[in-house]
Structure formats: structure tokens, C-alpha cells
């Protein structure tokens, strides 16, 4: 089946089998390897992407179901090539990762939280990343990273809303 997906603001097309998950389409058809495949049955959260700004498990969604939504992957967060978003930078600063496997999912979950919650409590952060498993950090530094990012975003006063479906579309390259 042919699908047209809007990924990080760009329309991309692929011919996929209906059984292909959004996760596999992102990785295999669009070579966006930042979305990680973990358990592939909706337990670990490594494959989290944003669908219309809300975190969703891309292994629990088929690519053929994903047309018409704005999909944001970890590749879509950095303001420019070679740069990091405020949240990505905060994860580096506070050592919020070790092996890095869960990190794209964690950062997207944190991004979704901080879009709407300017001053999150620790409980808000724990709830936001509760669906994401990390086997290295023990979560302490991840929570610290999100708190740090929230504080920085408040200072710079630059909320980063995820792109919405009604915004203008860029031409695919």
C-alpha cells in the first residue's frame, strides 16, 4: 500500500505492507534510525515518536494508519544540523544517558511534557517518562535532565510546540 506521511514537516511517500509498523517504516523506508526498536510490542518506549505533538509508541501503530498526522522523530527536534535542542543539551549536561538506547524516546516524552507544562513537578516528569524503560541510569539523572531543561526553557522563554498538521508543508528533497 502506498502511504504519504508527514515526518518532521516533510511529506514522504513509501510503498509498505499493511503489517509494517510506523517504527519499521521510519527506520527502513525513511532511514530515520534515531527511532529505536526495543521490545516491538509496546512495553519499553524506545520507539516513542510524537504524533500531532503527543508521544505515541511507533511499534503499536502501522505505517498505513499514520497518514494525515504530523509525525515528529528525534531527528526533528534539533534547530539546525549539528545543533541540539535545549532538552537534548540538558541530557548531555546532566549525564541523562549512558548507552543511549532509550534516550530518543525519553527526550520526545520530555519534549511533549514541556510543550504544555512550563513548570513541571517531579511527579509530572515521572508520569511523563513512566512508559519509557531505561536500564542504565536508574532514572535519577533523566529526571534531573528534564528539570534542568525546564528551568532553561523558562529562562529563555522559548516554548517549542511540535509542528501541527495545518502548518505549511515543505517540499520533499
Amino acid at each position, binding site marked *: *500500500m502506498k502511504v504519504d506521511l508527514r515526518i518532521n514537516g516533510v511529506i514522504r511517500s513509501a510503498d509498505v*505492507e*499493511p*503489517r509494517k*509498523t510506523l517504527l*519499521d517504516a521510519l527506520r527502513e523506508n525513511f532511514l530515520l534510525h534515531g527511532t529505536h526498536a526495543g*521490545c*516491538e*510490542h*509496546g*512495553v519499553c*518506549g524506545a520507539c*516513542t515518536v510524537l*504524533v500531532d505533538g*503527543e*508521544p*505515541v*509508541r511507533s*511499534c*503499536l*501503530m*502501522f505505517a*498505513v*494508519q499514520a497518514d494525515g498526522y504530523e509525525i515528529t522523530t528525534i531527528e526533528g527536534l534539533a534547530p539546525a544540523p549539528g545543533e541540539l535542542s535545549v532538552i537534548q543539551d540538558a541530557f548531555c549536561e546532566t549525564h541523562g544517558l549512558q548507552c543511549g538506547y532509550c534516550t530518543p524516546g525519553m527526550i520526545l*516524552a520530555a519534549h*511533549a511534557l514541556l510543550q504544555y507544562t512550563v513548570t513541571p513537578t517531579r511527579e509530572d516528569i515521572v*508520569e*511523563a517518562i*513512566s*512508559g519509557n524503560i531505561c536500564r542504565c541510569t536508574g532514572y535519577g539523572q533523566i529526571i534531573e535532565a528534564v528539570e534542568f531543561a525546564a528551568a532553561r526553557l523558562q529562562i529563555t522563554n522559548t516554548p517549542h510546540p511540535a509542528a501541527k498538521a495545518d502548518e505549511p508543508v515543505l517540499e520533499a528533497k
Partner: protein
Amino acid sequence: MKPAPFDYVRPGSLTEACELLAADEDARLIAGGQTLVPMLAMRLARPAKLIDILRLPELAGIREEKGAVVVGATTRQAHAERDPVIKASVPMLARVLPWVGHPPTRNRGTIGGSIANADPSAEIPLAAVTLGAEIMLATTAGATSMPPDDFFIGPMLTSIGQGECVSAIRFPVWPHKRIGVGFFEISARKSDFAFVAAAAQVALDEEGRCLDVALGVGGVGDRPLRLDVSSLVGTKLDPASAAEAVNAASIELDASSDLHASAAYRRRVAVTLCMRALEQARAEAAAKSTKGAR
């Protein structure tokens, strides 16, 4: 962890969806897919065809009717959690939703999907059973509905027929001014499947006497169950009366046993959580003003 091949169709109307479903024994409906897709990935389910109903306009939306709130089957759990109408008029549903899965699964998972899945420990079916919400169905012959006691018949089993689709859940709205809800559950980790869950809703008069009460338990038996504690109407829901009513109502509880919890444990925890839920509901209702709107 890759699903077996299947055909994918996205019908344009609910009637078409029911016809497609009725025509093919191996076809299944998919909406949020938060339970179905893991089943497909593990090949515990191998439907030949998936009929995607998530974008059907007939199944969307939350609307108020006289004495009820009708929640469309494809309402996302996360949207219902934030919805002001649900918060104000069906507080029990609003209370249990944060316990359903995790934020990313609630963003895709639907209210109707959880009902149709009929997991005995799931919170949304528990709220529906406790409040006596009507399950609205679309069939090839038109719309119909069913009380929850007829709908849920066992673990992951419902009495829904071939070619039928859950279209909405009609939650009754209590007319009283002072309403409180209580909810507790025990699980290995938050948002895991509950070993036992208890939900209560009470309405109090100006003097704090109980006008109406609903109590239900999930995870204990093969489906969520409503407990008859109507003897509490007229009391002040004091601990002694509550204990007597809960103990009497839980005698007939048919608890199941598995490697997580024995039947005896489940029954004991059910009584304790019922008491806590009733007390939380009473305290919440008592804290509300006797005047003004709900």
C-alpha cells in the same frame, strides 16, 4: 516481533465497517490498537483483515444528554482524561483514567477499545460496570445497546456478535449536588495490570447521609463486578456500617487465583480497597458545598 500479513481497509462509514466485519469471520476491528497490535506482534492474534474505525466520525466525540454523558468509542483515553464534561459529570471515569496504561498508550488507546477488550482488571470496564453504563452497539441491523452485566461475560469475553461494533458508552450522570468518588488499586508497578481494583461513587445529602452509592471491584474475578451495598443508603457511611455492607456483599465474590495473587489474597484486598474507596468517596462528597452546582 512482526505481525503476520493482513489486509487493511479503512471504511468510510460505520455501516460499511459493520458490513465488512459481518462478511468476514477472520476480520477484526482496529482503533487505537494498543492491545491488538502487541497481540499481532506476538502472533497471538492473526486476523486476515483489519478494519480501521479510528477516524469514523460516527464514533467520535463526547456529548451530554439528559441524565447521561455519551462517550464515543474512539475517544482517546488521554482526551477523555482532560475533558471538562467528563471531569464534572462522570468523575469516576476521570479518576480511573490516569491508571490506564501510560501517557503514550493513552494518547492512542480508546475508551471503546478498552470496553471491547474486556480485560477483567481494566479500569474503564470497571467504571462502566460500577456506574451501570450502557454499552451502545452498531450492528448491520442498526443501533442497539446492552447493560454492562450482559456485555461482559468473562475474561476478554463479551457477548458482542459478529458484525457488531461498540459505538459509544453511555455513562449515567447522578443528579445529586454532593458527589464523591474513590478509587484504589494494587499492582506490581503503577499502570501494570491491577491484581485488585475498587471504585466507589457516593452521593450525600446536606446532613452527610448517603443518598446513593455504587461500588465495584476489578481484577478479582473473570470480569469487573458491581457489589450491592444499597443497605448503606440512609447511613452516614460510618466505618462500621461500611464494613458490614462490604463484607456481606463480598461473600459471593468469586475470586480467581494465579501466580501473582491467590484467590484468598484477592478477596481480602478487595474488601480493604472497597472500604478505602468508599471512605475516599465519602470524604470527597462531604467536602463539597451543599449549595450550588455539582
